[in-house]
Each structure stands twice: as structure tokens, then as C-alpha cells.
């Protein structure tokens, strides 16, 4: 078989498998009426979720590592007792973003990677905040997970920040 033919066959096999289906994606954004530096001071602490997110009960960083060390793992509990472990993949004070993945959770998903990003709104010294995630799951679970995480985790976090930081 010629080279081009083999490549075409390979890509056909791939695309008929799981790659054909786009990964579920969550996008939630808001505006916080506080300067970006004040919002970022709270969000950059990878171990700080219990300080601002109402659904998180406690958190610790494994192996006593600093919370801004890329690669560190946070081990935390939700208020309902569920336990999650998440790994810090990227952190930038310059661009004000934080990227992390889920290592363990009770949710029926895999390959979950999320980014929380701040951008200054120069008009009024406010903050544009975006929280995105991509993951894999059984097709019939996708909508429930997208809506559930988007509302209960992301938007609920924004609402808490708005309450806490509104000056």
C-alpha cells in the first residue's frame, strides 16, 4: 500500500473512534466589580479554594509543597464530603491565569483540564473573569456535567467573589 493510502486509512480509523466526537466544553464568564489585582490575589493561591468558594470545605497541598509550585497537587473536600485531587498545570502572575487537571473525583469524567483567567476591564478598573474546562465522558452524561459544573462550581464561584469583593 502506498504511503498516502496508509495515512488516509489511519486517519479514517481514528476519526471513526472517539476523536470524531468533540470533547464537552464549559465556558462561563462574568465581571467582578473589583481591580484585577485584588481578585488575582485570591485566585492565585491554588490551596485557597475554602477561602472564597462556598462549596469547598477544606484543602491541603500534598507533600508540603508550596501552592504556587507548578505540578503540586491539592487534595480537597466539598461541603457534601466528596473528595477531589487536582494538579496545578500552569500559573502566570503576568497573564493572570491558572490551569489545572483533575486527578481523582467522584464525577464520571476523565481528561478534565480547566483554566481560570482574569483580564482587566480598563473602563472602571474592574475584572473580566473566564473559567473554561474540557473533559471526556460518556455522551449521555455530557450535558448534565457541563451544566452542573458550569453553574454549581464556576458561576457559584463567581457569585461568591462578587459578594466578597464588591467594594
Amino acid at each position, binding site marked *: 500500500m502506498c504511503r498516502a493510502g496508509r495515512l488516509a486509512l489511519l486517519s479514517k480509523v481514528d476519526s471513526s473512534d472517539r476523536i470524531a466526537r468533540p470533547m464537552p466544553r464549559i465556558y*462561563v*464568564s462574568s*465581571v467582578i466589580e473589583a481591580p484585577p489585582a485584588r481578585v488575582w490575589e485570591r485566585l492565585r493561591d491554588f490551596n485557597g479554594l475554602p477561602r472564597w468558594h462556598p462549596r469547598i470545605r477544606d484543602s491541603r497541598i500534598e507533600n508540603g509543597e508550596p501552592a504556587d509550585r507548578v505540578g503540586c497537587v491539592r487534595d480537597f473536600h466539598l461541603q457534601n464530603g466528596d473528595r477531589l485531587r487536582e494538579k496545578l498545570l500552569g500559573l502566570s502572575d503576568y497573564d493572570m491565569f491558572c490551569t489545572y487537571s483533575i486527578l481523582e473525583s467522584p464525577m464520571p469524567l476523565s481528561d478534565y483540564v480547566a483554566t481560570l483567567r482574569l*483580564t*482587566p*476591564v*480598563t473602563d*472602571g478598573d474592574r475584572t*473580566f473573569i473566564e473559567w473554561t474546562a474540557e473533559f471526556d465522558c460518556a455522551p449521555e452524561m455530557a450535558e448534565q456535567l457541563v451544566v452542573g459544573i458550569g453553574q454549581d462550581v464556576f458561576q457559584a464561584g*463567581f457569585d461568591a467573589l462578587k459578594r466578597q469583593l464588591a467594594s
Partner: protein
Amino acid sequence: MPKVVRSTVIDQPVDAVWAVLRDFNGHDQWHPAVADSHIERGLPSDRIGCVRRFHLRDGSELRELLLTLSDADMAFSYCLLETPVPLFNYVAHVRLAPVTDGDRTFWHWESRFDTPAGRERELAEMVGRDIYEGGFAAIRAHLAQGMAA
């Protein structure tokens, strides 16, 4: 190299704002500083590489080249080819994002350029205030008018 960044929130759905901004030849319909505009050589205004030639209200003529345009990212960038104002190597980026909390639009507009020494602050202020903030206010009024009509 001065960098100018301005951003705002428009109380309109992102599709409505993008529908206006994606037309590289449409700025004479909404920007108060622009008197008239046309695309050279009859090219469509969403063709990468097209050049808009336009006049400001004061009569000065400018030419700008469309560098990138993305409906997927709701973003475009362009550079200045000719201008009576001493802005050199001017490249600007416009980007929209949905504010899902309230169905509004985040609008980010930034540029970098060179100027004659000593005029950095003055020209950065002119670009940021007159062009970008002036543009924000004009789009707000333009879209509010459209809603009322």
C-alpha cells in the same frame, strides 16, 4: 515601544457586537472619527490582506491592512500602512468574548507602535482615548439606537 490597552463591557449580546465589528469597512458607520471608508481594489472586507482607505473628520487619509480575522475567536488584527500621525509599526488587536453572566460582551482593544522620541505618552493617550474609548462609546450608542429603532 508604547503599548495601549483599553477594554470595556457592552450591554449587548456578543453576536450583535461582532456583527458590527467584523466588517473591516464598516467603521465609518459607527466611529465618530471616521468620515468615509472603502476597501481598495474592490476586495471583500473580510478578505485577509485587504486594505481600507479612509478619511478622518479632519480630512486626513489613512490606509490600514487586515492581518487576521476570526469568527471562531471573534477577533481581528490590523496594521497601519499610511497615516499623517507619526505612528510607526502600528499593529492593533481587537477581541470580543461573551460575558455569559448577563449575556453581555467583553471587548478588548490593544496595540503596539513606535513614535518619535518624546511623543510616546501623548500619542498613546490619543490612541487610547480618541480611537479606542471613543469607539467603545460610539458602539454603545450605535447598538442602543438599533435596539430602539
